């Protein structure tokens, strides 16, 4: 199935969340305001990211990470006989200039820089091509999207957007029944832990904010991140009412309930009729 649209309607956070939860493999291209970026994923993990027109050869990545001096980078560019990033990486490791860890951490940081750069984009076309993998000569990493989503969400600064995403603070938060996020990969900051500690299936978002002395903006930002990472869910209003009713002290009259037997009979008759249409 095609996945394409505009970031006005579906944000970078939401796209990454979708790719993560659906464990997608393929290439996501984002075109916004003259920038074309491409990210590759395998089974929901980020492999590679680049921005068209920017030098993302290994030499430039290592120089940016401080692993190579400008002079060393220049020498490699002009004199090196190797042609691909993988060949250059092997050469540097074998020659004892850099470790494998140096190279992988530099590539990882480069990939993260690209992705975090894209998070604030709020307008532009996106298109996901299934099963597309990065060019074979590139050094790839394999990064969990959950932490990236959390960090990216932290960086989202648009108050209006957050308000749109989470308009109602009087809803209750609960932990996801079936979290699809391995918790060990999540890095929560102190404020996020403070929010987490008040999630009990009864406290509303507003109450949690009040307990922690947080502004609406702060709580929205944190809750949006937790929702996007699939750690928590909003309690459906009906479920909320049921839980509230359960919390009513004994002795108080229960709300009138329509006899279910009557309604059940009606539903069965409708089902039979629609089956026969």
């Amino acid at each position: 199935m095609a996945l394409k649209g505009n970031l006005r309607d579906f944000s970078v956070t939401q796209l990454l969340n979708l790719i993560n939860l659906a464990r997608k493999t393929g290439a996501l291209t984002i075109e916004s305001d003259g920038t074309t970026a491409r990210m590759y994923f395998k089974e929901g993990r980020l492999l590679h990211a680049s921005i068209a027109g920017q030098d993302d050869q290994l030499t430039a990545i290592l120089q940016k990470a401080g692993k190579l001096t400008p002079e060393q980078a220049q020498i490699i560019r002009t004199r090196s006989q190797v042609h691909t990033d993988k060949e250059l990486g092997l050469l540097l490791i074998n020659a004892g200039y850099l470790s494998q860890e140096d190279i992988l951490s530099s590539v990882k940081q480069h990939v993260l820089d690209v992705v975090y750069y894209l998070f604030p984009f709020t307008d532009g076309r996106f298109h996901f091509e299934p099963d597309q993998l990065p060019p074979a000569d590139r050094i790839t990493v394999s990064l969990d999207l959950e932490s990236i989503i959390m960090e990216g969400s932290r960086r989202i600064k648009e108050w209006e957007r957050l308000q749109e995403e989470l308009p109602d603070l009087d809803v209750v938060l609960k932990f996801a029944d079936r979290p699809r996020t391995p918790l060990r990969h999540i890095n929560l900051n102190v404020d996020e832990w403070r929010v987490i500690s008040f999630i009990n299936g009864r406290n509303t978002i507003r109450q949690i904010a009040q307990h922690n002395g947080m502004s609406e903006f702060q709580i929205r930002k944190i809750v949006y991140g937790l929702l996007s990472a699939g750690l928590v869910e909003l309690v459906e209003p009906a479920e909320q009412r049921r839980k509230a009713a359960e919390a009513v002290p004994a002795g108080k009259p229960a709300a009138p309930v329509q006899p279910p037997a009557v309604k059940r009979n009606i539903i069965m008759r409708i089902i039979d009729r629609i089956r026969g249409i």
Partner: protein
Amino acid sequence: MQNVKIVITGPFAAGKTEFIRSISEIDVVSTERRISDNSRVVKEETTVAMDFGRITIDQDLVLYLFGTPGQKRFDFMWEILSEGMLGFVLMVDSTKSETFREARQILDVFKKYAGVPYVVAANKQDLPDAWSPEDLRIALRINSDVKVLPCVARDKESVKHVLLELLYTILESLEEGVS
């Protein structure tokens, strides 16, 4: 004679009118009018008050299907239409990601009106650009216990499937209420 109703809601041009037309035994009583604003590029007419379809269940029972107006300026009608409904279907045009946020906002509003069961119909699944139901679930942040169903609103069998799944969900909710 007892009347019951199911509401079909969703963004503008999601396919609500077509959905009701596919299964109603009467010509849908539609209050469509020619569109007078920018929405004209999407379709020529839209529902300004409601669509109204009917399925006679038996001698004593009639099911009405109400389609809500898709344009936001008519949202004052939503609460009136939702009163007393058995459940509702949220229709989403799977090919138009620009409507997903509005679909979720409509869903939030309807959930507030009444804590009744609902399903999400991922319409236009016959088109090549359609997002899959599972991708839609994530995009609309629909909880895992809510059904997101593939749908082609002009196909009667597809519409029957969506309505039956909603009715099964209503039944389950009644049984949970008993136990």
